[in-house]
C-alpha cells in the first residue's frame, strides 16, 4: 500500500529551513509519498539533497523529488509575464507543488513540465 501525505503550505510556512527539511525527510523515511503545496527555497532543495545523502543507509536509499512550478513554463506573452512576476511577489514559494517519495517506492519521477508521473518500483522487488 502506498501512502500519500498532503502538506499544506501553512504547515511549513513558519518553520525554519532545518525544521522543514526534517519534517519532509521524516515522512519520506516512514515510506510516505509527500505532496506538498508550494516549493522549498532553492537553497533548501540542495540542503534536502545533502541531508538525504547523510541519512542514506542499507534501508533508506534516498529520495525522488519533483517540483511543478508555474515559472517552469515559459511565457511568451508580456502581460502574462508581468502577471507571473506579480503572483510571485505576492505568493512567493506558496505556488506550485512538490512531490517527494522514498527511492525504495518511487523508481523514477518524470516531469513534462506541467505533469508529474511517478513510476513505482515493481511490487516483486518491494517484497524482497
Amino acid at each position, binding site marked *: 500500500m502506498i501512502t500519500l501525505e498532503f502538506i499544506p503550505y501553512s504547515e511549513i510556512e513558519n518553520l525554519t529551513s532545518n525544521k522543514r527539511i526534517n519534517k519532509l525527510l521524516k515522512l519520506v523515511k516512514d515510506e510516505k509519498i509527500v505532496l506538498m503545496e508550494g516549493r522549498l527555497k532553492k537553497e533548501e532543495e540542495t540542503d534536502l539533497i545533502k541531508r538525504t545523502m547523510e541519512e*542514506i543507509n542499507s534501508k533508506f536509499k534516498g529520495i525522488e523529488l519533483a517540483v511543478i512550478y508555474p515559472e517552469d513554463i515559459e511565457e511568451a506573452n508580456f502581460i502574462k509575464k508581468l502577471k507571473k512576476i506579480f503572483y510571485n511577489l505576492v505568493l512567493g514559494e506558496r505556488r506550485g507543488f512538490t512531490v517527494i517519495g522514498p527511492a525504495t517506492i518511487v523508481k523514477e519521477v518524470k516531469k513534462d513540465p506541467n505533469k508529474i508521473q511517478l513510476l513505482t518500483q515493481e511490487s516483486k522487488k518491494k517484497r524482497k
Partner: protein
Amino acid sequence: MVDILGFINRLFNGWFRQKKHIKMGLYGPPNGGKTTLANRICLDWLGEELGKASHIPHETREIQIKEQISIKNKGKELTFNLVDTPGIATRIDFEDFMKFGMKEKEAKERAKEATRGVIDSIKWLDDMDVVIIVLDSIKDPYTQVNITIIGNLEARKIPVLIVANKIDLKKANMKKIEDAFPQYHIVGISAKYGTNIDGFYEALFKIANKKR
C-alpha cells in the same frame, strides 16, 4: 588612519582577487561524462588526464582539481583551475553497483563514498566562478537534480554553460536539452571523441567573461 589602512587593504585584496585563476566546476548528474570532458580538456592543453572515467555510476567520488590550465582561442588566453565534481543524485543504492558485478562489501563502500561525494559537490558550489553542467544527451534533461543545480547557480549568480554530451550516440537528443533550458547556451559535444570540442572552447571563453 583607519580609513587609509582599509583603502590599502581593499586595493590589495582587489588586486589579488583579479589575479587569481577562475575556478571552473564541472557539475551534473552521475554518468553524464564530466570526467571524460575533464580528461579531454587536460589532454588537449596539458597532455595528461585528470581522473578515471567509467560506465559504472559514481566513479568520481572525490573532488578532483587540475590547476592552471591555459587554453587559447583566436589569440586570447584563458587560465583556470578545473574542478571535476562527483555526480549529484538524490538516491544511491548499493544494489545498483552490484548489478555491475561488484561484491556487496565493495558496493556498500562505493555507495558510502558516493553519498559523501554528493555532499562535497554541493558544498563546493559556492566556491565556483563558472560552472559547466554536463548532461547526457540520451537521458531526460528535465530532472529535479538538474533544475535544482541550475536554480542554485542562478541564485548565486554563477555563470552557467550547459554541455549536451554524447552527441555521437544515435539516441542523442540535444533539442530536448535546449527545450528544457531555453534561457541557456547549450553546446553539443562528444567528450569521448572530441566532436565540436572547438565550439566548446569558444563557448568557454564567452562564459568566463561573465564571471562574478
